[in-house]
């Protein structure tokens, strides 16, 4: 099943998966079973489905963190495989936000956010300017020099969002970004996420269990047992 073409064929395809297969434990646990999917530039797409249906695996494959057993992946029109420049992909093309914030606890908020810029060799003044912009937008300006242990759950997840966007990626892959937060904080973080991706023209592919959040995306893709079952467009 091909999904997503109906969104806007004039836009370039940001993410494309073609007949994607992935299994674990030497092929005994099949996670993806022939996934075809396209996400257009600037689109926000929610991946929904029960635990273990392959949402996270699909995100990891798009981010170059794992390899499919079979099938093709293209990011911004460039096919990626084991020989691709994965560092370029991770440093400049995609940003990740996980369910757990995955911040380094002994560093400050600012230091955590600067990690991707250090990896990419971005000069400090440029990095600090970008950090200022994102901190302002996410309401974290007053917490820049605080250690992660001192931040609330929502602040930590907002920090993770800032970090993911530091190098101005064109694509944001979010794996249940509000999954570890309470309802109120989840809502705040999700609103912020949508605001930021809209403001920066970022393509968002987000795995989530929260239907209410999923319905606020441009498209909802339903996964089940390693396959894409259907897709729904925002009205």
């Amino acid at each position: 099943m091909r999904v997503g073409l109906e969104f806007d064929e004039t836009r370039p395809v940001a993410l494309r998966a073609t007949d994607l297969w992935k299994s674990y434990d030497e092929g005994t646990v099949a996670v993806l079973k022939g996934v075809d999917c396209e996400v257009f530039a600037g689109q926000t797409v929610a991946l929904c489905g029960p635990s273990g249906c392959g949402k996270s695996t699909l995100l990891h494959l798009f981010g170059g963190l794992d390899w499919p057993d079979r099938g093709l992946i293209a990011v911004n029109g460039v096919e990626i495989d084991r020989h691709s420049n994965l560092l370029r992909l991770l440093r400049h093309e995609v940003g990740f936000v996980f369910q757990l914030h995955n911040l380094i606890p002994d560093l400050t908020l600012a230091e955590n956010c600067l990690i991707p810029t250090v990896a990419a060799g971005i000069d400090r003044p440029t990095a600090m300017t970008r950090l200022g912009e994102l901190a302002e937008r996410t309401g974290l300006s007053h917490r820049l020099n605080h250690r992660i242990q001192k931040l609330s759950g929502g602040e930590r997840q907002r920090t993770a969002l800032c970090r993911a966007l530091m190098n101005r990626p064109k694509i944001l892959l979010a794996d249940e970004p509000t999954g570890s937060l309470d309802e109120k904080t989840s809502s705040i973080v999700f609103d912020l996420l949508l605001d930021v991706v809209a403001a920066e023209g970022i393509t968002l592919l987000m795995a989530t269990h929260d239907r209410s959040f999923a319905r606020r995306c441009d498209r909802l893709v339903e996964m089940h047992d390693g396959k894409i079952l259907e897709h729904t467009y925002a009205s």
Partner: protein
Amino acid sequence: MIFLKLIATNLRRHHIRSLISVAGIAFSVAAMLTVVTILQGAIGMFSRILSNDSEVIVFERDVSDLFFSNVPADAAAQISSWSIVAHANPVLFGIVSSEGHPIITCFGVTPTDARIQKAEWLLGDRGSFARQTDDVVLGSRAARFLSATFGSRVQIGHATFHVIGVLKTANGFEDGGVFMPLASAQSFFHKEGTSSVITVKLRNKDAIATFKNMIAAKYPDLTALEDVEFTRSYSQFRILKATAWAVGGCGLLLGGLGVANTMIMSVFTRIREIAILRVNGFSHMQIGGVIFGESAVVSAFGAVVGLLFGTCFLYALKLIPALDGYVDTNLHPLLVLIVLMLALLTGVAGCLYPAVYAMRVRAVEALRFE
């Protein structure tokens, strides 16, 4: 900056473990420095005994130890008469024991020997040396441990000698030694007509090659070596040096294993953190760089602490009266550099496996791991 902060953070997070690693390297460096410096000092002292106002040593060819060398006494007289030679002094080395003192070094020398002529005489008159066969001169440390002074009689080995002087030299071996007339020493050690070495001063240093050729032609059983050449090639010195470096090396190896252990634990306990760095664009080399950086900091810090500790230890040894004159506290800059480099290399080698392990961490698996 963040890179350095990551290194510092990881070391601070497990500070006790980091400190133990630093201590491991520090003790290793201190041990190596101390052992090598003491042995080099000892070798230097022994070399200076041989090179006292001379630049060439003549001794029996192919002997394993100078104490076994037998140089005919008439050779010294012959060599002295050569026009290129300023002076040639036979010296007989011997070791005896006396009650409470298992090792006393004896030097059988002639009255013209530089040790007698140039040393600072604390008691007695240098002109009186070798007038009587049972006269001896003691180094100041020997006088102390033998409880002897000018005019007293001392038991050395099986014989009793009359102390006619006490002299002070900067050389620990000489200062703890007994100087006796060559003839008395030959008789005492049953080496009549021989000496252990002949120390030779040439009129012109450029004539060393000529001198060696003359010795080879005239005395095929003897060999002549420059002082430096002798120090470099003498098998006993080489064994001592090799032993010192081996002992120090073992110490350093243990220190390196400590660093390896720390770094392995450090990597294993932050697999997730390494995965986070990877997801945020850190290359394998950058991740390896963090691990190498931590190890380098531990090693460098350990090396500096070890250097300070070793130096203090050497000075402390020098203050022990029994070791006075035997311990040379002069740290050779090259030795310090070698030890520091070895410490750094050991530390870096110790983190090879942890670094490779960290570089191979698969982010997707590590992030699943809670």
